[in-house]
């Protein structure tokens, strides 16, 4: 029965999406109940699968009861169940947050379509993490890019249409180059199942090295475009800043992370580390990650709109995760997975608290943040806590992820990256600290002083405070997460050293 849980997770999300289509527009309350019920069930089942998989090994679920080389396979190991738990948690909290916020951004007639897109996005998210089949990953990546563009263009403003169109075109190039890489791998191995491709590759790669170089190039570039890694992040600022706040959090915390998980699957499960290091691909991705970390923060300094600042800082944080992956060591992987978690928490806390501030005062320009603390103490506290986390102040999870990354870089004797991390943290401080200082110390401007944070609905405040508490908890007791992460690395094929 337990093997069915991953499938039940996906079916709950899909059936909820299908049922919401039938609910008439005026009965919005029904969507709220069904949605939160579905997300909490999915979260509980994800936790149960995580515990089950940790106890007695990975689940391999092949549709139709065929062998692995015939049917499509779902492979749920500690790595997959850990990240589905994380995405389920983000989904639940973002859904609760979006209930209070949606009427301000999306028209009444669009509610049901907006939530159908969100549920299908999380269905595709679970699909991408669970599948062990390359072509299936392509299909779910397409669903993900279609729903992500749908969420951006839901606001029916011409700016959203333009941002969504550019996002769709670049995403499409990324997905099709990923498919081209799958075609090249199918050409020499004859399988699309990731584990079988990996086994077949080990003994065939010296026969056709060209195939593997071209396939890995196209796949990494394809996933890089979709994960907004530095040189390909052109679409990100417009798409993320014009999207509604709840979908901005989903786009940044969930969609970017998913493509990085596909990058990990491609680098480690499909090609395997020794094939990668012999073609010295990690050096190439490491350099890209380093430049991304610095350039992303440099761009963020020049921005004034809070949503564009957060969008550019996502580009920099993606660089951290790719740096951890391209170190190709156990410690490097552990650091990047930990950063996936801590960045997800911090970035969502930043989005939601900025959303509360915009919800009450409508202020998006960072220069008008002075005196916000006196007007709205709670959102400003969570915002500054998360901002300190991004900078890397001790006692927050942000500090720990930078610390682990530094250790991993030293361990892989690539000390240069420690310098890059320090520079990037200083740049983060340059654009986060003024906001925090301005909102705490200066006097509120005249026309803002009659608003207070009492008018923010409790459904928006709960997720913000949960994220803030999680940042602190992860910062002080990382042990609970790090030993699950070590288990996840062991289960990733080629987890060694």
């Amino acid at each position, binding site marked *: 029965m337990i093997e069915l849980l991953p499938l039940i997770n996906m079916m709950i999300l899909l059936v909820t999406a299908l049922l919401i289509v039938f609910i008439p527009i005026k009965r919005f309350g029904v969507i709220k109940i069904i949605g939160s019920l579905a997300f909490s069930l999915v979260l509980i089942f994800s936790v149960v699968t995580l515990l089950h998989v940790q106890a007695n090994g990975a689940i391999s679920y092949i549709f139709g009861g065929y062998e692995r080389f015939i049917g499509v396979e779902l492979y749920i190991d500690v790595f997959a169940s850990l990240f589905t738990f994380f995405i389920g948690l983000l989904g639940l909290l973002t859904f609760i947050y979006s209930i209070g916020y949606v009427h301000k951004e999306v028209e009444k007639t669009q509610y049901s379509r907006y939530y159908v897109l969100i549920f299908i996005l999380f269905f595709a998210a679970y699909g991408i993490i669970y599948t062990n089949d390359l*072509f299936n990953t*392509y*299909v779910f990546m*397409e669903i993900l890019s*279609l729903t992500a*563009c*749908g969420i951006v*263009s839901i606001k*029916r*403003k*011409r*700016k959203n*249409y*333009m941002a*969504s*169109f*550019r996002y*769709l*075109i670049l995403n*499409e*190039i990324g997905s*099709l*180059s990923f*498919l*081209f890489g799958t*075609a090249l791998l*199918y*050409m020499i191995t004859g399988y*699309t199942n990731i584990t079988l491709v990996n086994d077949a590759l080990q003994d065939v790669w010296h026969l056709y090295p060209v195939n593997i170089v071209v396939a890995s190039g196209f796949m990494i570039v394809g996933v890089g475009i979709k994960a907004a890694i530095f040189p390909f992040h052109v679409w990100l600022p417009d798409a993320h*800043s014009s999207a509604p706040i709840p979908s901005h959090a989903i786009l940044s915390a969930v969609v970017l992370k998913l493509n990085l998980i596909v990058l990990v699957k491609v680098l480690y499960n499909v090609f395997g580390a020794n094939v990668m290091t012999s073609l010295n691909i990690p050096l190439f991705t490491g350099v890209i990650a380093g430049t991304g970390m610095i350039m992303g923060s440099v761009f963020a300094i020049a921005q004034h*709109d809070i949503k*564009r600042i957060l969008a550019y800082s996502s580009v920099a944080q993606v660089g951290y995760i790719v740096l951890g992956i391209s170190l190709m060591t156990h410690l490097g992987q552990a650091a990047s997975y930990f950063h996936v978690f801590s960045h997800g928490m911090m970035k969502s806390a930043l989005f939601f608290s900025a959303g509360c501030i915009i919800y009450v005062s409508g202020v998006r320009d960072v220069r008008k943040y002075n005196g916000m603390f006196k007007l709205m103490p709670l959102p400003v506290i969570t915002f500054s806590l998360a901002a300190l986390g991004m900078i890397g102040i001790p006692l927050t999870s942000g500090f720990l992820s930078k610390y682990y990354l530094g250790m991993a870089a030293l361990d892989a004797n690539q000390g240069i990256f420690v310098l890059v991390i320090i520079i990037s943290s200083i740049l983060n401080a340059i654009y986060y600290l003024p906001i925090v200082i301005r909102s705490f110390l200066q006097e509120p401007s005249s026309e803002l002083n009659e608003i207070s944070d009492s008018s923010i609905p409790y459904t928006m405040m709960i997720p913000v405070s949960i994220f803030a508490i999680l940042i602190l908890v992860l910062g002080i007791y990382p042990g609970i997460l790090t030993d699950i992460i070590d288990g996840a690395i062991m289960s990733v094929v080629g987890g060694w050293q």
Partner: protein
Amino acid sequence: MSALFDNIINHINQIGACALIVIGLYIVVMHTNMIKRIIGINIFGTGVFYFFVSIGYVRGGQIPIVNGDESGVMINPLPSVLILTGIVVVVSITVYAMSLVIKIYEGYGTMDQAEITRMKSGENND
């Protein structure tokens, strides 16, 4: 030299597919008109699908309809199944991109992305 020509003839399908892919990429990168970009995406998609199907081709093979009597060599059915799925995906992406272009044309009055970025930076209403 003749070995090279034989090799080219052997791979003529894949070389054609690579040509389509490069043409598609060129169109998407170089042209700023939105409709041309969607056409570029379709050419790029067709090139990738053509490459994927040409892997399964067997010269002189029959279509994979198995009616009991083992008649002869059959082509590899798996790539054509995967492409059936791929084509539907590119169609739905194109439909969505077209509907966005309709609304962008209403909003900005132009089909050219370069003009729109100029208009946006001009107003800098961001």
